[in-house]
C-alpha cells in the first residue's frame, strides 16, 4: 500500500528534480506513443530533440523562438508570485508591436541610429500602458485582473487588424492587410551570420538576470513574496498590496511589449494581422514549468521552443502529425504538475497488515 505523508516543509531536492523527472517521463511516454503510431521511437526522438540542435542554424532558431517566451514569462512570474494573474500578455505583446512598429513606419526612409532603441522602448511603453488598464481597474474598482487582461487581448488583436487593414496598410500591397516592410535601419541586427539569432536573445538574458536580482536580492522581491503568500502579514509589515499590483503588472506588460517590438523588428520585419502564435499564453505555461524562477524559466522557454521546432522537424523528416507536438507539451505539463506531489508529500510503500499475517 502506498501512503502520502505531508512533508513538514517542501522538499528542495524534489523541487529541482521534478522538472527533470517530468521531462524524462515525457520522453519515455513519447517514445511509447511513437511506437504505437508506427514510427521508430529512436528515429522520432532523434528528429524531435537532436536534429533541431545539430547545427548553428538550428541553435539560432531555438533562440529566436525562446526569446519572446522567456522574456514574457519572467515578467509574468513576478506577478504570479504576488498572486497577480496577468493572463493578457498576448495583448500587451500586440500593443508593444504596434508601438514599436508604428515608430518604424513613422520614420520610414529616415532611420537613424536612435530608431531601434526608440522602437524597443516604445514597445515597453505600449505593453505597460495596456497592462495599466487591468492594474487601474483592479486597484480602483477591485475588478478581476484575470478577466480584464484576457479580454483586452482580443481588443488589442482587433486594434492591430484595424491598423493593418486601414491607416497603416502598405500602399503598394494590392489591398492586403499588412504594412510595408520596415526599412533596414528598423531591423534588429543579426548576431550570427547564416542564422536568424538577433539581439533580442541577449536582451532576454538581461531580463532573466534582472528578474533574478529582483526575486533573490531586492526588498521589492521580498515584498512580492510576502504579499503573495500572506497578504495580511504584508499589511502588518506596511507593504502596499496596491503598489505590488501596479508594479508587477507594469513590469509584465513592459516585457511582453518589448517581446512584441522585438518580434516585429526582428524575424517578421513588418506588421501583419498575426504577429504572435500565442506567445503570451504559452509563456504562462513556461512560467510554471520554470517554477516561477527566472533561470528555470529560461530553461523552460528553451525546452518549449525545442518542442515546437522539433515538432516541425519530425513532420518534415518522418511525417509525424502536428498534433503530436500538442500531445508532447500536454504530457510535459501533466507530469510536471503531477510530480508536484513529490515536492509536498513523502511517498511511503508499506505492506498492508504485514504483522498480522505473520
Amino acid at each position, binding site marked *: 500500500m502506498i501512503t502520502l505523508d505531508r512533508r513538514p516543509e517542501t522538499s528542495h531536492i524534489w523541487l529541482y528534480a521534478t522538472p527533470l523527472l517530468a521531462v524524462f517521463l515525457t520522453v519515455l511516454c513519447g517514445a511509447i506513443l511513437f511506437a504505437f503510431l508506427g514510427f521508430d521511437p529512436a528515429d522520432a526522438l532523434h528528429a524531435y530533440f537532436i536534429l533541431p540542435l545539430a547545427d548553428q*542554424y538550428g541553435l539560432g*532558431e531555438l533562440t*529566436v*523562438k525562446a526569446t519572446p517566451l522567456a522574456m514574457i514569462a519572467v515578467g509574468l512570474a513576478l506577478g504570479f508570485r504576488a498572486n497577480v494573474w496577468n493572463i493578457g500578455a498576448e495583448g500587451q505583446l500586440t500593443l508593444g508591436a504596434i508601438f514599436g512598429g508604428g515608430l518604424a513606419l513613422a520614420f520610414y526612409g529616415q532611420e537613424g541610429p536612435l530608431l531601434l532603441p526608440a522602437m524597443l522602448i516604445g514597445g515597453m511603453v505600449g505593453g505597460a500602458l495596456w497592462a495599466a488598464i487591468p492594474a487601474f481597474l483592479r486597484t480602483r474598482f477591485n475588478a478581476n485582473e484575470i478577466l480584464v487582461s484576457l479580454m483586452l487581448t482580443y481588443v488589442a*488583436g*482587433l486594434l492591430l*487588424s*484595424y491598423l493593418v*487593414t*486601414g491607416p497603416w*496598410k502598405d500602399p503598394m500591397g*494590392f*489591398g*492586403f*492587410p499588412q504594412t510595408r*516592410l520596415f526599412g533596414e535601419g528598423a531591423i534588429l541586427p543579426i548576431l550570427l551570420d547564416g542564422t*536568424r539569432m538577433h539581439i533580442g536573445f541577449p536582451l532576454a538574458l538581461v531580463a532573466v538576470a534582472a528578474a533574478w536580482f529582483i526575486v533573490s536580492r531586492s526588498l521589492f522581491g521580498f515584498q512580492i513574496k510576502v504579499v503573495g503568500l500572506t497578504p495580511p502579514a504584508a499589511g502588518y509589515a506596511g507593504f502596499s498590496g496596491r503598489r505590488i499590483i501596479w508594479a508587477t503588472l507594469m513590469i509584465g506588460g513592459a516585457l511582453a511589449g518589448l517581446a512584441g517590438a522585438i*518580434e516585429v523588428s*526582428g*524575424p*517578421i*520585419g*513588418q506588421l*501583419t*494581422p*498575426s*504577429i*504572435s*502564435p500565442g506567445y503570451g499564453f504559452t509563456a504562462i505555461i513556461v512560467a510554471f514549468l520554470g517554477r516561477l524562477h527566472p533561470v528555470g524559466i529560461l530553461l523552460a522557454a528553451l525546452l518549449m521552443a525545442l518542442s*515546437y*521546432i522539433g515538432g*516541425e*522537424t519530425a*513532420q*518534415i*523528416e518522418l*511525417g509525424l*502529425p*502536428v*498534433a503530436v507536438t500538442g500531445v508532447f507539451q500536454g504530457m510535459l505539463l501533466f507530469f510536471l504538475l503531477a510530480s508536484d506531489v513529490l515536492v509536498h508529500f513523502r511517498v511511503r510503500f508499506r505492506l498492508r497488515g504485514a504483522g498480522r499475517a505473520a
Partner: protein
Amino acid sequence: MIKLTRRSFSAMTLAAGAAAALPARAADPFKVGFVYVGPIGDHGWSYQHDQGRLAIEAEFGDKVETSYVESVPEGADAERVITQLARSGHKLIFTTSFGYMNPTAKVAKNFPDVMFEHATGFTRASNLATYAARFYEGRYVAGILAGHVSKTNKVGYIASIPIPEVIRGINAFTLSARKINPAIEVTPIWVNSWYDPGKEADSAKALIDQGADIILQHTDSPAPVQTAEERGVWSVGQASDMAKFGPKSHMTAIIDDWAPYYVERTRQAMAGSWTSGDIWGGFDTGMVKMGDYNSALPEAAVAEAKAAHDAISAGTLHPFTGPIKNQAGETVVADGATLDDGELLGMNWYVEGVNGKVPS
C-alpha cells in the same frame, strides 16, 4: 563522381539539359515540400492542397518524396519552416497561404537553386512563382442559386480576412444573386481567421438569427455548413465538397483542385524546364470546380447555374461585366465594360447590395 552539391546539380540541369543529370536523379527521389496554414483535417483549404500533394505522389511514385508541415502560423515561424524544408533537400516548395509571402521571398533569396511556389501572393522572383485560382467564378455560380432560393432575401457571408480575394468573392456572389432577385442583401461577418470552427459557427448562428436563409463562407472549416444544416437553411461548401457535413443544406461547393497544377509544376521542376511565373486559373483550367448540386434545388436554378458555369468556362461570360454599381449606387463599371485582372486583384470596395463597410 556522383556526389553533386545541390547548387552544381541544378546548374548542370540548367546548363547541360536534363539528360546529363537524369542518372543521379533516379537514385535520389525529387523532394517536394508543402507548408499548410491549417490542419489537413480542416476538410477545406489545406485539405485540398494536401490532395494535390497526394496527386504528386500518385503520379510520380518513388521518383518523388513529399513532406508537409501543417498549421504553420503566418509570422516568424513560417520562415523557419520554409528554410528547414529548403535545407533538408526539398527542391520544390509550395507555400499555400497569403501570409507566407514575405517569408517565402526571404527564403527564396537565400536558396537560389530551390524553386518556390507561393499561393495567392504577388511577390515573384526568378525562383519564386505565384499561383491562385479564380474562386470568384464559383461564387458567381453560387449567387445564381441563391437568387433563386432565398425567401428572406438575406444572405449571410462568413468572411475571413479582408483581402481583395475575399471581397471579390462577396461581390461576384452579390452581383449574380441580385440579377435573379434584386431584393437580395448580403451581410458579411469578418472572423479575421482562415480556420476557426468556433467563431465560424457562432457567426453563422448570428447571421441566421438576423434572418439569413443562405450562409456563404470564405473560411476553411465545415462548421458553417453544419450550423446551416442544424438550423435548416442553405449553405455552400468552401474549397472542398462539404456535402457530407450538411446533406440537406449543402447547395453545391466551390472546389479548389490544385492537383493538375501541382503535378505539372513538379514534372517541369524534375525536367529542369520550370520557370517562374504567375497563374490565375479558373473554370477553364479546372483549378476551380463546382460540386454536385443538391437534388432539392429547383431544376431551373440548377440549369441556369450550369449554363453560367459553361459560359464562364468558355470565356463568353465574365462575372465582372457592367453595369456594376457600388454601394452608393454610382455606376462604376459601364454597361458592357469588364474589370481587368489588375482591378480585380486590388478590389477593395463592395458592390451595391452588400451591407456594411469594407474593414479599413
